[in-house]
């Protein structure tokens, strides 16, 4: 499994690099959305998501994309518009971040409860107060229990590819569950890097038209999300739970189908880097992975067996895949850009829970870092590796704030 990220597919198809363009991350994602041919787009601009929907608005205005672009007064309205649109059978798209996602909270449950396969890019950003517009992942991690699937991407190319995959996963009749494609704000939305933009024809072949079994139709009236009393409510939640469990297989399947069509693969639920023989394994999500890979290469050169496991699908949480990937590690360090104040942090807690009833008895320590946009550097990763190394003998601290500035406290 290791070294997969060096992407065999790229090496096999040198011609692909000729199609690469240096574009902004937001443009690349907007272009990917265009290739998904959404019928309705509704969004409210909020930094650092703004460029994605600005580009989409431009594409619609230029006639490049035949979609209904609805401007609204708030994120609450944006997602509410899509509830109606999606129920009426329209492929629907939105994008938001931070406070915008928080404002959508009530509607997030309506979308997942009504089983509407909406796709939304979340440009991850910190939450107020204190006011901060930089990147971390507190926003979408905070929405982990709303019934949406969540995919976390590492770079712009993966954000592009995951957006197309997302519609195929969400619209699968057995899944019918909305997805957030989570990409780090600024680091991925505002960066310019070489990207292979999706081919419109290939995308159309890959993603069949949205044809839901039931839609809102005046000639055959139906109600979505009607009242359910205590005798049936539990069963509706169970159906959602079951669909997310099924999605574990669908995410893998769609990732493989994508590889067959486009030649790129990022792992389905999880991926790893130099983890096969690794003793110290770092588990994380998102754009910090690039930095960690460099740090791992340096540590490997020093003879330390360090590896990385990337969690791509956070919801559904890939319990079996993680047990399999982490079974030979001698210590695990979780690094994440969120904090569950009063608890620990999302990924750490979920990973510990996933391993508890298995035979894996590996010590696990966790770090929250990069909150409110603080850089995570190779030096920080080295520190984590050292602490993890020490934790093999004795765990000094189960969970800590990395790089905490004690001098200003």
């Amino acid at each position, binding site marked *: 499994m290791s070294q997969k990220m060096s992407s065999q597919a790229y090496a096999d198809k040198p011609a692909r690099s000729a199609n690469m363009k240096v574009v902004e991350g937001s443009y690349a994602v907007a272009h990917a959305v265009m290739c998904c041919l959404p019928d309705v787009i509704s969004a409210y601009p909020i930094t650092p998501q703004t460029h994605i929907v600005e580009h989409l608005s431009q594409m619609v205005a230029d006639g490049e994309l035949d979609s209904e672009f609805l401007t609204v007064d708030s994120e609450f309205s944006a997602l509410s518009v899509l509830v109606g649109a999606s129920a009426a059978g329209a492929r629907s798209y939105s994008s938001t971040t931070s406070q915008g996602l928080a404002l959508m909270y009530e509607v997030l449950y309506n979308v997942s409860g009504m089983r509407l396969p909406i796709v939304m890019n979340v440009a991850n950003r910190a939450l107020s107060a204190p006011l901060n517009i930089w990147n971390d992942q507190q926003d979408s991690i905070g929405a982990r229990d709303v019934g949406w699937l969540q995919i976390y991407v590492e770079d712009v190319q993966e954000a592009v590819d995951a957006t197309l995959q997302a519609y195929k996963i969400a619209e699968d009749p057995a899944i019918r569950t909305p997805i957030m494609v989570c990409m780090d704000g600024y680091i991925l939305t505002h960066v310019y890097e070489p990207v292979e933009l999706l081919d419109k024809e290939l995308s159309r072949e890959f993603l069949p038209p949205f044809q839901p079994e039931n839609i809102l139709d005046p000639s055959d*009236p139906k109600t*979505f999300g*009607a009242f359910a009393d205590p005798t049936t409510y539990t069963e509706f939640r169970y*159906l959602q739970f079951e*669909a997310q469990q099924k999605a574990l297989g669908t995410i893998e399947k769609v990732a493989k189908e994508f590889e067959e069509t486009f030649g790129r693969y990022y792992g389905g639920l999880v991926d790893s880097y130099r983890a096969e023989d690794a003793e110290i394994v770092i588990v994380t999500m998102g754009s910090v992975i690039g930095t960690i890979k460099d740090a791992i290469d340096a540590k490997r050169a020093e003879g330390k067996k360090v590896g990385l496991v990337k969690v791509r699908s956070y919801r559904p949480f890939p319990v079996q895949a993680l047990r399999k990937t982490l079974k030979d590690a001698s210590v695990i360090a979780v690094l994440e850009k969120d904090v569950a104040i009063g608890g620990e942090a999302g990924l750490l807690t979920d990973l510990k829970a996933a391993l508890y009833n298995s035979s894996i008895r590996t010590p696990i320590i966790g770090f929250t870092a990069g909150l409110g946009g603080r850089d995570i550097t190779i030096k920080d990763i080295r520190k984590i590796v050292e602490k993890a190394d020490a934790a093999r003998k004795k765990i000094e601290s189960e969970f800590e704030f990395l790089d905490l500035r004690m001098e200003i406290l």
Partner: protein
Amino acid sequence: MEIKAGKLVDPCSTQITKTGAWRTFVPVVDHKECIKCNLCEIFCPEGCIHQVSSKDVDALLKYGYKPDQISSLPKDDILFVPDLNYCKGCSVCAHECPRKAIEMFLEEK
């Protein structure tokens, strides 16, 4: 009853879902005191008080009357009857009744 993901239902689902189970107190109408003023029917927030002929046994059974209760009702009269499948026991009818002909009782289930 099979459920459909997303709580997808055909029209009139609120008639199928019996909401009377929420009730704690049940209204009991003293039909001899009733002066047919119509106020209970007008004020009922659920719209579930109906005018029923005392001969219409089927309707009375449907609204929650038991056979022995029906036999003790006034003969050949129009009765104001709460539909206990939907009545939530809010007491508005009892409060509005100018003859205090509706009394609320704790319902034991």
